Structure formats: C-alpha cells, structure tokens
C-alpha cells in the first residue's frame, strides 16, 4: 500500500543574467495526494516535466519532500527514508546496472545490501535466473550484454528482495517490443502476487493493458485521480491518447 499525502517538492532555480544571479523557487510537485492499493496497478500519467519522476523518486526515498509525506508499506518516508527502500523495488530507465560486474555479482551485491540471509539469497537468485533465463549469461559482464539481457538482470535485481511495493518510472522507454514485453509480464505477475504496483508511462496502450487506477499529473498538480474504469466511462474523446491530451489542455 502507498498513501501519498499532500506531497510538495520545491527546487531552487538559479538563472544567470549577465553577472547577476537570480534565485527562484519552483514547485515540481504541488500538494499531491493519491493512494495505491495492494493487488492493483496504479498508473501515474503526465506530460514531460509534469512531476511524475519527482513524485516516484520521493516515494522511493531517493529525494526528500519539502512537505507532506508518503506511507509506503506502513513506513512513513518522513521518518527517515532508508528503511522505506527495503520495501520497494525501483526500476526506471535511469536505474542502470554496474557495467563491470556480472549478473551473479550484481544480485549478490543487492542481496547483501538488502540483508537477505545467504542461503535465501542463493535460492532467490537461482529462482530469478531460471525464471528470467539469465543462467546462460550470468557470468558475462553487464557492459558486454545486449539491452534485453541487461533488462532481465535489472528485473532480477528489482525483485531480489521480494519487495511489497514496485515502482516503475517509464520502464519500457527506449526498449524494443520484446524487451518491453518482459517488463509488462513482470508488472502483471506482481499484481497477481498481491504487490502494490505504481508505474508511469507515456505509452497509452500499456496503460490500457495494465492499469487499475490512475492519476494524471500536470505542472506538479494532480488533475485526475480515480479508477481506470471510471476514467474510461467518463471519456469524451475516441481514444485514450486523445482523452489524455484533452484533459491536459483543459487543465
């Protein structure tokens, strides 16, 4: 379960005018609230720069909110953000892998950091390697792997500690359809296993395929938050993409 409560994140922006510097404050996320429930997939939609990544980074404990909080699997992120990371699997286009380690070493490193007992880590690693077909290249360095291989290892490292909450920030961005499919499968399977899943995407077909609940965010503000079923029933446009564009323009 994720409960996002009045989350605000401000950044200082410095603009240079000749020799003068002007500092202003910009709210990347402004008083955002929503809830993601276990066994359901929550989509966070919005145009570029809307505040999706900032929101997800705050939930994942990577950056601190200016105000408000999020309760992730009963852990309040405002009470120190390290513990919350034990409950989350975080996968984005910018969570790359360490190129000079191989798949085995990568999972060992993550497993030890998550303090998984040695025997359990070994079992979990073998299970994930078998399931994702990593065994044949497990000793190959990440830097020498294809994009598809890397993505499989990324999925394995996201799931190594069997987190209750999974966060995906544009996880299929830039991937070919076959590699993207493995991510879609993972998201589906996580839902079936009763995990709380939140993902952001620009690809409406993916949203249509996976989404149970959604929030649309624009310029840091939530402009829509309801179930996907209700969203579809309220649609005035012919397709999801057009409806999304219209909602953003109206906001």
């Amino acid at each position: 379960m994720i409960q996002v409560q009045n989350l605000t994140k401000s950044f200082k922006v410095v603009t240079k005018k000749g020799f003068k510097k002007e500092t202003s404050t910009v709210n990347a996320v402004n008083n955002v609230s929503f809830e993601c429930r276990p066994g359901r997939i929550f989509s966070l939609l919005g145009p570029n720069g809307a505040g999706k990544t900032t929101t997800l980074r705050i939930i994942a404990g990577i950056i601190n909110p200016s105000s408000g909080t999020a309760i992730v699997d009963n852990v309040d992120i405002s009470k120190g953000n390290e513990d919350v990371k034990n409950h989350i699997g975080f996968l984005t286009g910018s969570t790359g892998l360490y190129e000079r380690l191989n798949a085995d070493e990568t999972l060992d490193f993550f497993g030890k950091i998550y303090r998984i007992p040695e025997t359990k880590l070994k079992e979990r690693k073998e299970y994930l390697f078998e399931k994702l077909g990593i065994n044949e290249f497990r000793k190959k360095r990440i830097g020498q792997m294809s994009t598809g291989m890397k993505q499989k290892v990324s999925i394995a490292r996201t799931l190594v500690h069997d987190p209750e909450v999974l966060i995906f920030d544009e996880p299929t961005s830039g991937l070919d359809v076959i590699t993207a499919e493995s991510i879609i499968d993972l998201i589906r399977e996580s839902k079936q296993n009763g995990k709380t899943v939140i993902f952001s995407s620009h690809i409406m077909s993916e949203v249509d395929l996976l989404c149970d609940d959604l929030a649309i965010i624009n310029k840091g503000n939530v402009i829509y938050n309801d179930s996907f079923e209700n969203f579809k029933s309220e649609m005035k446009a012919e397709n999801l993409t057009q409806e999304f564009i219209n909602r953003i323009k109206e906001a």
Partner: protein
Amino acid sequence: MRDLALIIKKELSELLRDKKTIINSIVLPTLLVPILMIGAIKVTQLISEKNQKKTIRIGLVNAPKEFMTLINNDTLNKMTIYSRTEDFKTLINADSVQTALVFPPDWNTQMDSLETSEVQIFRNGTKDNVNDRVRSLIDDYEAQLKNKRITRLKVPIDKMTPFVKNYIEIGEQKELIGKRIGGFIPYLFILTMWGGCLLAAIDLVTGEKERKTIETTLSLPISKFTVLLGKAIVASLLGFIPAILNLVGLIAGLKLIDGIPDNFKMAINEMLSPQSITLILLLLIPFSIFLSGLIISLIAGATTFKEAQSKATPIIMLIILPLVLAMMPGIELTWATVLVPVLNIGLVVKEIMAGTVDMTQYAIILFSLIAFAVATIYFSYRKFSDENAILK
C-alpha cells in the same frame, strides 16, 4: 560498517576491472621512478660519451706555440689559424669555427716582461661542451705560464700558496642529500596521488551519472553518507596505492639499476628506512582522504567526465605551487608553514628524509591533515546530498 564494506568492495571491484585505472594507478606509478632513473642515467652517459667524441673547431689569431701544442695534444681539436682578427661572430654563427681565441701580436714580449696580457675568447655561451673544453685548455696553459714565472722569479711554491682550504663536513650525507632531494620525493608522491584520486573520484561520481547508475545506488537502503564515504575511501585508496608503488619503484630502482653512485645509493637507502617510510605514509593517509573529499565536492555537480576534469584540473596549481616552494632551498619547516596544506607535507618529508624532523611539528601536521580530511569529507557530503547537483 557492513554497508560501507560492501560499497567499498563493489567500487573497488568495478574500478580494478577498468584497464585505464590499472594502467594509471598500478602499472605507471610502479614503473615511473625506475624508468626516470634509467632514463636520466642513460641520457647523461650518452651525452657525456657523445661530447667526448666530438671534434671542436678552434680559430686562433697570434697563438703562441705552447698553446697550439696543448691543442694538438687532443686529436679531436681542429685549429684554423687566422693572420688577423676576423668577424668571428659571423664565423661562429656559420659554424666555420665553434670558438676563437685572439692573442695580442706582442704576446711573447708581454710574457717575457712578466706583464698581464689579455686573450679575447669569442664563444657562444650555450655550447657547453666547446666552452668547457676550451676553458680547460686555457686553464692548463695559464697554469704552465704561472709555473714558469714562479721558477723564473725563484719564488718557492709554498710562498705562493697563502692558505689551503680544508672543508670538514659535519652534516651527515643523509642530511645533505635529504635536504637537497627530499623535496622531490613528495612532489612525485603527491602528483601521483592527485592523479589517482582524480581519476577514481571522477569515475565513481561522474562516471556513475554517465553510466546511469547513480539513481540505482541512491535507491539502495544505505545512507548517502555511507555511499559518499565508500566512494571517498576508494578514491583515496586509488591515490594512496600508486604513491606506495612509487616508493616501491624507487627502492627497486636503487637496488637494481647500475650507474648510481654508491654514496648516493647508501644515503637514499638510509633515508628510506622503515621508520621514515612509516612517518611519510602516515601523513599520506589523511592527505589522500583530503584530496578525495576535495575532488568529490568539486565534481559533484558535473554531468560528464570532461566537465568534471575541467572543474578539478585547475586545483593542480594549488598543489604544484606549494610543492615547488617546498623544493626551494631557503624555505624551511617553521611554525608558520606547519599548517599550510601541501607545503607542510613537502617540507616535513624533507626533514624526515634528512633525519632532522621535529616530532611536535610532525604531530601538528598530522592532526591538521586529519582535520582537513574531515572537513573536505563533510563538504563533499553536503555536495553529494544536493539533489539538484547529484541527480542532474
């Protein structure tokens, strides 16, 4: 501590699998000093041998017979006799002759009447080999003439020698050499250390951004301070290890390379005793952490390797200048210089190697370096925690 150890292990594994790091941090530092030593010895030998075999062309005007005999004693000398003073500047520039000596026409008369005469020597000051050999010929000829005059005047030799200079060296060979070349040792260490720390810090911070792994690292359930400390320790190690390898290379070079004078070898061996090495290494530990902290705080906001390099490289001047100062003869370790970073290391290493270090000053330098290291680590943590800079 467990998390810190995991981060250090991971960062070290990554760095030591990079060929660039292996070459810069292990291969080059180990081979640098022996290569420099062999190079310097060989080049000096080669130049000296080449110079000895070179023919020099001397132009002469009114030269006395005795002097010409001296010149002819060395078959490599070639004489050109001129009947009068020519435009020797042009002739030397055109390489017709390399030097020219003009004696006055009445040279023999002047010598017979025990007068002081004048010899004009046309030369190019940059041609050391020619000038040294001609100077030696003139000195020999002058000595011959002096002896002749002494004999003719019937003055006993001892009457012409008012005193004999007898220098009694009270400084040990170790102290003499330590003070003279001691400044060069930290120069070598610190520059190597700087290079090692710089490459490692850029790879560990900016490299992570370029490889898009910084967000992965920050999503781990470890505090940013532990991550930063792990990176700073690894960067320090990658600066410290090359410095030790420099030392290993120096010791190996002295033991294995022929052509180094024995007294110099002995003095250096004495200088690099286990006690001196321990004292030097003890200083280099906090200094390498200080450098890593400084570099990380400078490059935390950089998004590319190139940007990071351009941000950190100018600082090299702040390292080189104090080191050059430390090598200068007049600059000594005093209570005024004891707290100046880099300069204090340069000076104290000189004192350690000369065996004249004041342990109170040493302790103050060590504590000041620890304080500087703590300060730069804190500062780099502040920069590393800046979300705007690190997630750029």
